[in-house]
């Protein structure tokens, strides 16, 4: 039960380190340790902080709420055909909305600083968030439809990619989850975390005023989200019937592949123009709908 | 006898519809009064109720043929203008309308499938009523309006003669209407409006509107 949760926590420690390492290698540098991002966070935890005079209490609480939101939503994600810590009908709705809560608090915290840059970031973040959400719900709707079940645990217990036509579906949705994860974590091609110009940032510009412990929390939140989505990917791809040992291996593999993929993508792809983003995000929903059609074919609703 | 009177009456109606001089109106009203007097006499002569006969006939003569025209004449004297200058409708059209009204009266009277009322009476009465209305409609000035009303009254009176030859109280009440009209309208007219008519600005009394 708690194994999955721990795995997610552990993987998140390494994830961005791997990404950064890949990016360094791709650009011909040696790069820092895979633990470096986590070390940065630990360092930030010990630092003092400067708060804007404009901001209020909300600004100080928001990172806490955001990370707890992610931690809470991780509670409903199962591992290896086992049970999640909490599992109930409709828990993926809770999952999505809990993440949205974290986003909401961060957005209004950004607006709390009164900075025009952070307002801009907040604005973009909300817009992208709302465009992604339908895709997730279509995906979950399709999964609920073909399994007839309504919680992460039950769905992933029943969703078996091997020995079924649903391999196609699994791959499709894995792709979708990767895209969603990229948007949620503000990576390429929607957002570029290493951009230099505030005007082109999305997530980074929102947290310009955060410092010290809070900034550490924000970074940690991003790590956790990667772990979270890696776990969902594993669940989608790996048959639940496999033994727990294989599952752990598979999970490690998924984390590795996923992080390498992100690293490569960030090395060789340019960020979208801001105006291109909304249509790009709509393709996510389109992907979800494609999944729906595939699923309908599988359960033979469409002859 | 009756038929002659009625035809003569019809002729006065035609005249009245095209008349322009105020004098002519008064004359025509007087003539109609006299004709009605004869008509009342001949219509009611068979009645058993002698008193009512005398009353009606006298009233017709005194009021319709004498008093009203005299009153009208006195009003004219007070006014500087003695002629209709502007009308709402040209004389030609009002004549056409009157002819049309005659047709309608005939048709209407025919449709009503006369029981005990003489058809000619009916036609004449309706025709007179319509002519009165047309007179009012076709004119802008108050004096012709007044004449129109008097003609209408005559029509009603004629009809009451036709219907009420056996029921004097109907006729009597018609006379009441006459009295009422003469007293109220002419009284008001003579006493108040007549004076103001000389003022060209208040000629038409049409300030109350939306």
């Amino acid at each position, binding site marked *: 039960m708690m194994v999955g949760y721990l795995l997610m926590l552990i993987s998140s420690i390494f994830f961005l380190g791997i990404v950064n390492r890949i990016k360094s290698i791709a650009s011909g540098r040696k790069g820092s340790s895979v633990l470096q991002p986590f070390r940065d966070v630990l360092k930030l935890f010990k630092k003092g902080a400067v708060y804007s005079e404009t901001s209020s209490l909300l600004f100080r609480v928001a990172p806490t709420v955001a990370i707890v939101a992610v931690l809470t939503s991780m509670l409903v994600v199962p591992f290896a055909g086992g049970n999640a810590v909490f599992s109930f009908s409709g828990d993926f709705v809770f999952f999505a909305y809990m993440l949205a809560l974290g986003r909401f608090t961060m957005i209004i915290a950004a607006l709390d600083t009164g900075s025009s840059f952070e307002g801009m970031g907040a604005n973009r973040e909300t817009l992208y968030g*709302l465009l992604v959400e339908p895709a997730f719900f279509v995906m979950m*709707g399709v999964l609920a439809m073909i399994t007839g079940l309504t919680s992460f645990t039950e769905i992933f217990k029943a969703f078996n990619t091997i020995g079924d036509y649903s391999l196609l579906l699994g791959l499709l949705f894995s792709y979708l989850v990767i895209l969603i994860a990229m948007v949620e974590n503000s990576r390429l091609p929607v957002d570029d975390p290493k951009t230099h110009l505030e005007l082109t940032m999305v997530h980074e510009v929102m947290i310009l005023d955060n410092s010290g412990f809070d900034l550490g929390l924000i970074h940690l939140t991003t790590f956790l989200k990667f772990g979270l989505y890696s776990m969902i990917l594993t669940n989608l791809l790996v048959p639940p019937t496999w033994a727990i040992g294989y599952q752990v291996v598979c999970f490690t593999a998924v984390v590795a592949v996923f992080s390498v993929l992100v690293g490569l993508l960030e090395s060789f792809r340019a960020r979208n123009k801001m105006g291109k983003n909304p249509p790009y995000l709509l393709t996510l929903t389109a992907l979800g709908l494609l999944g729906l059609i595939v699923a309908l074919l599988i359960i033979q609703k469409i002859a | 006898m009756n038929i002659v009177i009625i035809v003569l009456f019809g002729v006065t109606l035609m005249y009245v519809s095209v008349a322009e001089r105020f004098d002519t109106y008064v004359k025509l009203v007087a003539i109609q009064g006299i004709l009605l007097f004869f008509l009342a006499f001949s219509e009611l002569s068979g009645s058993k109720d002698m008193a009512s006969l005398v009353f009606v006939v006298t009233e017709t003569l005194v009021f319709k043929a004498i008093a009203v025209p005299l009153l009208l004449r006195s009003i004219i004297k007070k006014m500087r203008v003695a002629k209709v200058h502007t009308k709402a409708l040209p004389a030609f059209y009002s004549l056409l309308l009157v002819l049309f009204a005659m047709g309608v009266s005939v048709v209407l009277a025919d449709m009503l499938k006369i029981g005990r009322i003489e058809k000619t009476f009916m036609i004449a009465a309706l025709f007179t009523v319509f002519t009165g209305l047309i007179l009012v409609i076709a004119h802008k000035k108050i004096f012709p309006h007044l004449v129109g009303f008097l003609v209408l009254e005559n029509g009603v009176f004629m009809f009451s003669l036709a219907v009420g030859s056996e029921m004097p109280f109907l006729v009597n009440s018609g006379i009441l209407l006459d009295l009422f009209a003469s007293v109220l309208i002419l009284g008001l007219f003579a006493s108040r409006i007549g004076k103001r008519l000389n003022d060209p600005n208040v000629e038409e009394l049409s300030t109350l509107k939306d």
Partner: protein
Amino acid sequence: MNISFLLSAAFLPLFSFILPKGRHFAITITTQLLVAFISIAGVFTAYSGVSLFDSHFGIGGDLNIVPDAISGFFILIINLVCLLTTAYSQGYLAPYFSTKGKTEMALHALSLVWLQVSMILVVTLKDGFGFLASWEAMTISSFILVMFEANKRETFKVGISYLMQMHVGFFFILAGFVMAYGKTKVFGFEALTEYFALNSNVPLFLIFFVGFGLKAGFVPLHTWLPNAHPAAPSHVSAVMSGVMIKMGLYGLVRVLCSIQSSFFEIGIILLSVSLLTSIWGVVSAIVQKDLKKVLAYSSIENIGIVGIGLGLGFLGIHTGFSSLSYCGFAGAILHILNHAIFKPLLFMGAGSVYAATHTRNMNELGGLSHKMPYTTTLFIIGSISICGLPPFNGFISELVIYLGMFQNLAGQSLREIIMLISSSMLLALVGGLAIFAFSKAVGIAFLGAPRKPLDNVKEAGPWMLMPQLVLVLLIVLIGIFPKLFLNAIAPAIDMFPLVGNGQVAVEPMLASLGEVSWISLTFFLGIAVVLFIRSKAQQDVVISQGPTWGCGYTAVGSEQQYTSTSYSDSFVSLAKPIVKVSKEFEPLEECDFFPQQGSFKTGSNDLFEDMVTVHPTNRLAKLIKRAAILQTGYVQHYVLYALLFILSILVLTYFKLL
């Protein structure tokens, strides 16, 4: 519930016409408490069978009506919201004491009480005459409340147009009742079951839908709503948005409970109109810069969500999926309750802002979090809740509706699958858009740096804060213990035409809600833990304050902040076809080296408002006005009318047209 009691109590505020202004509040709140006591006692009697009053006491013993579960549910929320808003008004109206006359204040007090009483009567009376009369009484009392600030020209216009649109709805409801009456000889809700059993269901349903939908604010019948709510004083907007528009839903629910066939068609109509409503509402909410208008449009959105629940319920009946029907209806009822809690809270918050700053324009607000910390906090909690985010109550009702959608996907036919999936997708979109709208409302209006000086701004008084606190408590309670509340409203849900065994449907849902309480508690625990760690970590380090980081540019002014207009601009450019934003400005001329002072104004128009309400009525009114040609002042014309009338009747008779 003794109606005569209720009515006699409602005349108590007449005393305020002779008593000084200071006493009005006491009279009002006492009366409202009395009314609440009488009506709730009625509900209590209905549930427990114990009569609190001897029904023969009072003027008419025969007017003793026992409310059923649906009525009981509505009576409770009406009393809750009305009492709290009246308490709030004690603080909110304080500045008006010096400017308003005694009569105006007394009239206001009387209308407040009457709004409550008439709404209670609306949900209690089932006979057509009583219902329609109390329906109109509700309209007229709310109209007077809206007109409270009618000295402003704009408010006056809005008030009149509100009254007229409500009256249109009234005629539709009347027509609906009469249609049923024609077949059954019963005038009122009781007739509907019999009528629906024997006749086709859709036409009558549509008539009622238009009538009640006007009150509830279904798109495109919503046009009165976004204007009337901002124009009214805030405690009135709170009542109107919190419970009064729910009266439209109440009527709809009563009609729906009697439907006997055509479930699919009606479900589709409800579902598609509701989806349109919720999306339209929230999209328009994003565009607004008037804080209360945002809230008003969000009410439309929430009405849409309730409608989605109802539509799903009907789809469930049609397909025979008991849990779909149960979850749909339960979600709808629960969302009515939830909206009645967080919307008044938000309106009160907006009212406090207005009272403090005298503006509702978000482009002139900002930075209130320092001056009004409590109001800001309460508003933020309300916003989170209205966005349907956990761990608060808004999430619960949306979850129940989602549950209905997801639990019943398997085994449906293609048509239903597509409908369910697309509704869930759109509902998710609405959720995201709501976050957009409310992050803007909170962020622009309350947070950041002040856009206009806030020297005289003070935190709202306890009278204004306490009611909001009560509502927040409810928000948290429902969010954490949803099972309790769902059990409480279960009798009302059972009144719906459910299919199958309700118990089968309700078990998984209740189980799920039970888990939600635990995970929500975990969430709060997590926050406590992290905050504790945070405070420990920050104990030994230096925490300092400085200006907001301006990316190297230090002369940052508050004018450079994002405004409401710029915040929504990215969205507006996406949603161009359905959002009309007007811009008024004078362009600079060529070679204009010394430009004069210019101005720039933006506003937003509701497409439906123009298409459905404004243009047709204006055109018709102009036409009718132009037909005013009869009173010419000429006597000859007046006589002509008589002649023409006689002639036309004769002609018509001759051709046998009369």
